[in-house]
């Protein structure tokens, strides 16, 4: 064994002390807070999807009314008369 590995093993032993006592309500508190977070995420996701759908519908309505792809009628050319 090299000296370096020796030292690492010594540090490992130093870290390997008895575990601290775990609070009894740790799982319950973590589950409650995790459930809250999941619920918030779900609400946020729904809100964003709703916003996206509303925006898509609004765009479709506006586009069908304004028809921006059609060439607007010429306004500068004088009308041809007496041809």
């Amino acid at each position, binding site marked *: 064994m090299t000296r*370096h590995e020796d*030292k*690492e093993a*010594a*540090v*490992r032993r*130093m*870290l*390997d*002390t*008895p*575990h*601290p*006592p*775990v*609070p009894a309500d*740790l*799982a*319950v*508190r*973590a*589950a409650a*807070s*995790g*459930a809250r*977070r*999941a619920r918030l*995420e*779900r609400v946020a996701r*729904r809100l964003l999807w709703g916003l996206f759908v509303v925006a898509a519908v609004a765009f479709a309505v506006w586009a069908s009314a304004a028809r921006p792809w059609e060439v607007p009628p010429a306004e500068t050319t004088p009308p041809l008369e007496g041809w």
Partner: protein
Amino acid sequence: MREHRSGTGTEHAYRVREFEAFVAGAAGRLLHAATLLTAETRTRNPHARTLLTAALAHTYAVWGRLRDEDPYDLTRRDLAARFARTARRYRAGRGGVLSALHPQERLVVVLRLYEGVAEEQVGALLGLPEARVRAVCARSVAALRATSDRDAGTAA
């Protein structure tokens, strides 16, 4: 969403039981790792508890979506990322074994030597090249040995 449609009470209760079983098995080791990270003592570790509770809450939030992932590994990664984000708060040691080290050195030492995570995984987790992880680890080991020798010298 899926939860709501098939969200029967029994399924929820089953999930909670499963999660509680996981916590009962893993919390001791994870809390020890967290306490080493925040450099608190075994009996007084409020910061470590807060960190671990937040990491476990994240695990619970994605519990239904875990496929083949190991929840222990997931929690450990979240714990490490959470600690790295808030590392400035823990710069001053609070009497733990690793009090003499910087937060990043503590992270490397705990992940490499206590948790036995491979060097390349530690590097990926912390955004460091592998060589840097090795260097930080060697430096921390040397520093720890020096302090423990000094303590032994003063005690003797």
